[in-house]
């Protein structure tokens, strides 16, 4: 049983398909990375899976349940969390409030969930009273991921989690993602820093113009000369 299995996706805005037969699979405990040039449909694939882009054709299964075209709140209640690339925190709310709202859909006490998130991002505990909009890009990314982790997801979808971060913060973010994955959470992410992302990935997909081009383990994709030349900048 795959954690996530998307097959033959055709999806896009206003009747124009951005995805053209895309397929993706995430197994439990995997980190799966989607790379590819701009406009390849990487972000659209994530949004389509999460119910944010209309799907014209295709099927998405989550742990053997058909979840095609379900609205986002049903994704959340099934344990799928999504972190958009931009505007991914509530700027006027405090860090703590951002995290609490992450668990809005869940019943029960937040204390344990918060402790788990603080264990991964200790900085968020220190700064929990801080207004999220006033934080640095790196800290905001932590808040965004922390918010997503509050629903105790089985699958975490990250859209370019390292965009705009300094090299040091990029390293740290990938470390955290590996740490989150080690807790048994499947990760599906889109990344521009393709080489680094593939280094920690279990598997990777290369997407171009909405179609699957390559699919292999992280190291194998990195070693593939065609992929390196065409998609990883030589």
């Amino acid at each position, binding site marked *: 049983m795959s954690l996530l299995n998307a097959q033959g996706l055709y999806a896009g805005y206003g009747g124009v398909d951005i995805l053209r037969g895309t397929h993706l699979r995430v197994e439990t405990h995997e980190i799966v990375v989607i790379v590819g040039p701009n406009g390849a449909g990487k972000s659209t694939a994530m949004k389509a899976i999460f119910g944010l882009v209309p799907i014209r054709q295709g099927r998405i299964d989550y742990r053997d349940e058909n979840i095609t075209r379900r609205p986002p709140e049903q994704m959340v209640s099934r344990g799928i969390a999504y972190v958009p690339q931009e505007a991914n925190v*509530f700027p006027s709310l405090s860090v703590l*409030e951002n995290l609490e709202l992450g668990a*809005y859909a869940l019943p029960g006490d937040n204390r344990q969930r918060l402790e788990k998130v603080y264990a991964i991002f200790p900085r968020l505990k220190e700064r929990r009273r801080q207004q999220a909009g006033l934080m640095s890009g790196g800290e905001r990314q932590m808040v965004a991921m922390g918010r997503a982790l509050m629903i105790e997801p089985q699958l975490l979808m990250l859209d370019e989690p390292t965009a705009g971060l300094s090299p040091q913060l990029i390293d740290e973010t990938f470390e955290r993602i590996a740490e989150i994955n080690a807790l048994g959470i499947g990760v599906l992410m889109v990344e521009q820093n393709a080489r680094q992302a593939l280094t920690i990935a279990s598997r990777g997909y290369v997407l171009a113009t909405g179609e699957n081009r390559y699919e292999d383990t992280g190291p194998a994709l990195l070693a593939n000369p065609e992929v390196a030349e065409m998609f990883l900048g030589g």
Partner: protein
Amino acid sequence: MIEVIQLLINGILLGSILALGAIGATMIFGVLRFAHFAHGDLMAIGAYFALSVVSIFNLPILLALPVAMLLTAGLAVGIDQVIYRRIRQVQPVILLISSFATALVLRSLIQMIWGSSNQVYATGIQMPWQIGPLILKPDHLLIFAAATGLVVFVHFFLTRTRMGKAMRAMSDNMNLALVTGIPANRVIMWTWAIGGALAAAAGVFLGMDTRLHPVMGWTLLLPIFAATILGGIGRPYGAIVGGLVIGCAMELSTLIIPGSYKPAVAFAIMVVTLIVRPQGIIKGAA
């Protein structure tokens, strides 16, 4: 000097009434992204609900207040579910125009049900307190205390409850609220309920301070929008500050210009705000 203090007292009173209206209008804008033109008439109908409770059950106005707030909250939620909900996906300007139509309907309903002449909650003369040279009516104190209580209540609602936080979150970032699994429709209903209840309170206080007539809310709509814009659109705390500033400015302006220009003062502040600091005192959403 005495005159200034007296006008400030009146200004704070008017300001608290404006603030109650503006908090609702700004929250509705924050969550739904449209200027609700029927907000003033919602205030008026709340005032008339209280009038009916007062005259039918012979209750004091402060006991009629919660009833009127509940009824108006229900009415606001009902209007949203029946009218605005169907056109949520269209351009905001269409929502705005339909709220204008709703305003006309509400005002006509008031005239049909309660008549178009001036009415008061209690007849007879209330003896004002004479504190030195200053004049203060007991009702003024009551209005100010109740308005403060409601503002504190809203503050706790917004900062301490799950629903309040969800409301602020939706106002901050609608799309993120959606992917977080915040139930949009429930938050919208609560926003209308709170906005409607506060509007009713503002209407009742206005009726206590002056008198009830069908256009009482409509004429306050401009100062309320001015308060909303001055405070930063979508920012409830800004709306409180905005309401008080506009209220005091309107009253103090009578020192130099005739009182009939009070609404023009609010309008002038609104225009200047839009030119100089369009995001408002507290950085707003639009």
